[in-house]
């Protein structure tokens, strides 16, 4: 039993909701059944969805989708293919992943990946373009204009 160490009312409700949210954060790759999460948190499904939305501004399902798309952005920025990314973040179909990604991000996963790789390349080759000069000067970085030589 957790100690009543919190100074605000109904802290035990928050602890249960946070536990459910962290469960989604950790298991987004799997086929999560939101009914099970509600039961695990000792809430009815209706009460769970309502409380979750009040706290996080999204229903549990919307939150799960947001987490998956967020993780997909990270994977697309690394060396994952679109198919790998799709399955690694918990989608079953590349078509539905691509459609949802475009709806949320405004561009297809391949277009997003192309742009993010171009940006990474520019950061590697010309990092000073990404740093306000006042900071770069304070650090003494403006003297090393050719970063390919010092890396």
């Amino acid at each position, binding site marked *: 039993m957790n100690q009543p*160490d*919190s*100074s*605000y009312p*109904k*802290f035990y409700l*928050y*602890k249960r*909701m*946070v*536990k459910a*949210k*962290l469960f989604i954060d950790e298991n987004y790759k799997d086929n999560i059944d939101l009914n099970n999460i509600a039961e695990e948190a000792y809430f009815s499904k209706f009460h769970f969805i309502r409380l979750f939305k*009040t*706290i*996080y*501004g999204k229903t549990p399902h919307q939150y799960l989708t947001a987490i998956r798309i967020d993780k997909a952005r990270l994977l697309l920025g690394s060396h994952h293919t679109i198919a790998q990314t799709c399955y690694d973040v918990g989608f079953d179909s590349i078509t539905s992943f691509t459609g949802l990604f475009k709806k949320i991000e405004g561009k297809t996963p391949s277009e997003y990946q192309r742009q993010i790789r171009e940006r990474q390349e520019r*950061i*590697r080759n010309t*990092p000073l373009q*990404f*740093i*306000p000069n006042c*900071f770069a*000067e*304070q*650090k*003494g*970085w403006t003297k*090393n204009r050719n*970063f390919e030589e*010092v*890396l």
Partner: protein
Amino acid sequence: MITRMNHVSIFVLNQESAYEFYVNKLGFKVHTDAPMGPGMRWLTVTPPEQPDLEISLMAIEEGMMFKGEAAKQMRELVKKGTFGFGVFQCNDLNATYEELKAKGVVFKKPPTKEFYAYEALFMDDSGNWFSLGEKEKK
């Protein structure tokens, strides 16, 4: 007239550990992570819903910014919790407090009703502290 702030610095003891704290515990996004030569790195993060405010996690190192003893003095001051760097906002303070505590974030003050706001105070991995408040609920 000045209209916006788009960069701000937080001085940290170790950038790798700060990355772990701000990205993996607080959930901030990496904006730019650029190696700047041996042992040097430009690392900025943004709050999840504020992608145009870059927070530079600035390592305290002896060099042009901190000359001579200044770096050591600055490190000591940061470690002692001298600096409060700002106020962050969340949707629900109680839930965020419980989540961050579960992730090991140290709080100097739990959610408390003050005359000015409902707030908590937490420390980063270096010793910098921040106020955490919540968006006004309608």
